[in-house]
């Protein structure tokens, strides 16, 4: 009848994958892969793993396949390594584990290969640091097709939606065309330099999600089981440290902006033509955006508390 089977994506066409690996359509075009499709299972596992790491960066690998210009992530597994932001190729510690895991997977019937790695940036947003860029460039040199995914578990709780980004790096020396401005995200002061220096060396892919009919059923059951926990939790209470850190960071940025304004002759109102041609947001404008974002999240948290208070505490017998 022409209706697409929602579970068809789970079928692994070994011949098609082998053909793609032979043809390597991604070799000629650094922008070849544009989309990422992540399964609900992989997303849940990655976010749960990232959250379990607390303030420590964790990492893992993703298994899947390619589908034209899309990388399909079917599953993910954690690696027993930490401190991905402190050294290049932290995953080197886990090579033996990766090999064992991949081999065992094939024996267990999961035919998909490793198509990428994910790691967490607790509280500082989804982007690639210098070390991440080096690691991903190395991966793209020797393990194509390969994808880098970054998850921020702290902002996930604060924002109420999964903070995730999928990236691929450009080859060394490649000058990318002007990309449209991606969604703004707050970068803490101590990471701004690392972010700014390398932000042109990679591009973000669009992420969409999919789930099987069994996943839908299981997720419904999970909702029934955990809705009370979900309803009674509050990001205001759970993310206090993070919010305090955000406000402190904002204060430092304000101080920095104030110092810069004191030294600048023209101030930030008139843009000298020697500066960049495109309109750049002034530092104060970015700070006000950050402050509005932090406040909006707090107000959302408070709104849910007030609504719960009215619904469940205002009724008396």
């Amino acid at each position: 009848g022409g209706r697409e089977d929602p579970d068809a994506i789970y079928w692994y066409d070994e011949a098609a994958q082998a053909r793609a690996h032979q043809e390597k359509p991604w070799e000629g075009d650094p922008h070849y892969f544009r989309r990422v499709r992540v399964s609900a299972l992989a997303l849940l596992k990655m976010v749960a793993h990232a959250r379990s790491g607390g303030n420590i960066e964790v990492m893992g690998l993703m298994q899947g396949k390619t589908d034209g210009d899309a990388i399909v992530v079917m599953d993910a597994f954690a690696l027993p390594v930490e401190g991905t932001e402190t050294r290049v190729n932290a995953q080197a510690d886990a090579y033996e584990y990766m090999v064992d895991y991949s081999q065992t997977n094939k024996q267990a019937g999961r035919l998909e290969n490793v198509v990428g790695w994910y790691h967490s940036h607790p509280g500082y947003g989804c982007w690639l640091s210098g070390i991440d860029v080096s690691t991903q460039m190395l991966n793209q040199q020797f393990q194509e097709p390969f994808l880098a995914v970054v998850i921020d578990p702290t902002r996930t709780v604060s924002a109420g939606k999964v903070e995730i980004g999928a990236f691929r790096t450009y080859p060394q020396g490649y000058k990318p065309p002007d990309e449209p401005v991606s969604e703004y995200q707050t970068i803490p002061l101590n990471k701004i330099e690392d972010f700014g220096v390398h932000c042109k060396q990679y591009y973000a892919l669009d992420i969409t999600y999919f789930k099987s009919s069994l996943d839908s059923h299981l997720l419904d059951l999970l909702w029934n089981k955990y809705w009370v926990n979900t309803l009674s939790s509050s990001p205001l209470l759970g993310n206090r440290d993070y919010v305090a850190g955000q406000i402190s960071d904002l204060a430092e940025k304000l101080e920095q902006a104030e110092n810069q304004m004191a030294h600048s002759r023209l101030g930030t109102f008139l843009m000298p033509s020697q500066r960049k041609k495109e309109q750049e947001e002034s530092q104060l404008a970015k700070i006000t955006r950050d402050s509005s974002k932090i406040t909006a999240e707090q107000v959302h948290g408070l709104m849910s508390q007030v609504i719960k208070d009215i619904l469940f505490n205002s009724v008396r017998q």
Partner: protein
Amino acid sequence: DNSLLRQVSSLLRRLPAMESEKFQDEFLTEFNDTLLMTYLAMLTNC
């Protein structure tokens, strides 16, 4: 339906869900903190 009536009765007994001075204090503190943040954000915007 006696079973339903018992369940409703049990549910209604649970309301209000939270009623204590300590909770009110914490709740109002949280409220005030958020209002203060909003005020500061407005100042920053200005």
